[in-house]
């Protein structure tokens, strides 16, 4: 706190202790000097003269629980002592944030609501370190987050950054499954419509109305045949979809690979679009192309794809690890030929 702020405080306001009320209604007595390290509390004392007694205790934001408040006060108690070296502060901070993710999140939230920026930065960095290098599935598991992504999104292709034929094959498989998924949706809709459609010809209907011997069962049998055929097709599609979802659980070095895809919009539209996915990639053409190959070869390719899907877990992680590590090795810094860096790397 600055000297000007201190000068504003009247002598009668300068008391060694102040009263703070947490979200659960409990009131605590805290050393004023320590509590004033938090800008929000400092503001309440200076501007409103609050906290001087139990009856006019400073009401802390909803996100500050008694447990987090005591942690925050510990942090303030250490950091407001003058004359500590940066090394001391750093080592204290490192020990201070050694806690489970749940408490770390609570602390981040509470520090943010008290406008205690140094602690917000510290806890945010700790959370960032936890998140970095993990797949969406792992992140969801750590933080118990819901998966609100659709089945369609999960079947979207991988970015083929390495031009690896395996990814190409996998994308082809995904494209096939996406096609089947769309087909299944379409069939569902058709089936609903067909339930109301009478497939008998006009002559049959007339003879039936006139009481002739036109046997309506004949029509029914043809209908049943169609239904049976449709059921069989449905079962085949379901089995292939299961296979796709299994392939979709492929893990690369313990991280499951999944990318969103979106069509590239027109320039003018994309510049104004806010709903666009930031990290979306365009779909790969090779997925939906009917290569015009003979059925025998097509069957062979399908067999290869299925075989590949089975083998993927065994030797793929090592290869991907190599690629990823080589990609991270060199943090580039650009230099102009006279040795002065033009723009330093700061992503």
């Amino acid at each position: 706190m600055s000297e000007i702020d201190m000068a504003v405080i009247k002598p009668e306001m300068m008391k060694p202790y102040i009263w703070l009320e947490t979200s659960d209604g409990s009131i605590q007595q805290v050393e004023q000097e320590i509590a004033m390290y938090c800008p929000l509390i400092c503001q309440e004392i200076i501007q409103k003269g609050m906290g001087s007694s139990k009856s006019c205790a400073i009401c802390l934001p909803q996100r500050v629980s008694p447990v987090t408040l005591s942690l925050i006060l510990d942090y303030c108690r250490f950091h407001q002592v003058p004359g500590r070296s940066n090394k001391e502060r750093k080592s204290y901070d490192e020990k201070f944030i050694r806690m489970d993710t749940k408490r770390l999140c609570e602390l981040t939230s509470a520090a943010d609501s008290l406008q205690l920026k140094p602690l917000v930065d510290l806890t945010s960095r700790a959370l960032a370190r936890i998140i970095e290098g993990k797949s969406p599935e792992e992140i969801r598991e750590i933080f118990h987050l819901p998966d609100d992504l659709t089945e369609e999104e999960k079947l979207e292709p991988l970015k083929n950054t390495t031009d690896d034929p395996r990814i190409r094959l996998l994308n082809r498989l995904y494209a096939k499954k996406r096609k089947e998924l769309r087909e299944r949706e379409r069939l569902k809709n058709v089936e609903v419509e067909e339930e109301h459609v009478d497939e008998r010809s006009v002559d049959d209907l007339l003879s039936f109305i006139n009481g002739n011997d036109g046997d309506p069962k004949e029509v029914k049998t043809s209908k049943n045949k169609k239904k049976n055929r449709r059921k069989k097709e449905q079962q085949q599609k379901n089995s292939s979809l299961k296979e796709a979802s299994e392939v979709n659980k492929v893990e690369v070095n313990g991280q499951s690979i999944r990318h969103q895809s979106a069509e590239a919009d027109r320039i003018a539209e994309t510049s104004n679009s806010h709903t666009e996915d930031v990290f979306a990639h365009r779909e790969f053409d090779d997925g939906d192309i009917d290569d015009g190959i003979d059925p025998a070869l097509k069957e062979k390719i399908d067999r290869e794809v299925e075989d590949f899907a089975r083998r993927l877990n065994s030797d793929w992680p090592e290869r991907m690890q190599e690629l990823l590590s080589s990609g991270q090795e060199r943090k580039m810094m650009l230099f102009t030929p006279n040795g002065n860096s033009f723009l330093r790397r700061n992503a």
Partner: protein
Amino acid sequence: MDVEAEIDRLPIDLLAHIFVLFTSFTDLAQASGVCKKWKQGVKESLARRHNLSFAGWKMDDDSTARLVYHAYNLTKLDIPRSRWGCQITDAGLLRISFAKCISNLTSISLWGLTGITDEGVVQLISRTRSLQHLNVGGTFITDESLFVIARSCPKLETIVLWSCRHVTESGLFALVDQCLKLKSMNVWGTRVPEECLNNLLICKSSSSDKSLKLDCMYRMAFKVLK
């Protein structure tokens, strides 16, 4: 899920603050795939960034443009050629030029992007208003780009034209004549004759009180070797 996840209670602006600390675009991509709220947080974190550097990353037109669109407060943009090979083309620069942040950019680096030409550079630079530092070294731009830079960037202080072998003295004169705040120009490896470079310095010293640092050591070293 019975109990709401603790991190899910964090407001989006706080999530964005966490994502700003990520140095890897891969991590940002992974975070955006967790859930809808996180995706929004990632977008907001991009909007908070002042510097965006794609150095060392394999970027194409589409992904670069998408990221730049969301970085509303960007002041420094660094799209150099990576070891993966040049991926950015004129189409990418055209898309980037429509981003909201372009008029606020003070620094742009397109170093070594061999896939770009005057067409893309002109589109991008003509929409900048606050540009102070520009690096187009190692590209195939010509005087056409330099004329547009001279017209559109009155605040330009430094420009790197290293190995831009298609620029001539007329382009350089236009820069010196119209960019009154120009302090430094790197013209290593250009084919501009020595007398012209001397004339540039004379022209600059007469037109303004500020001197121009003309970086052409390569040429001088070459002369000494001769």
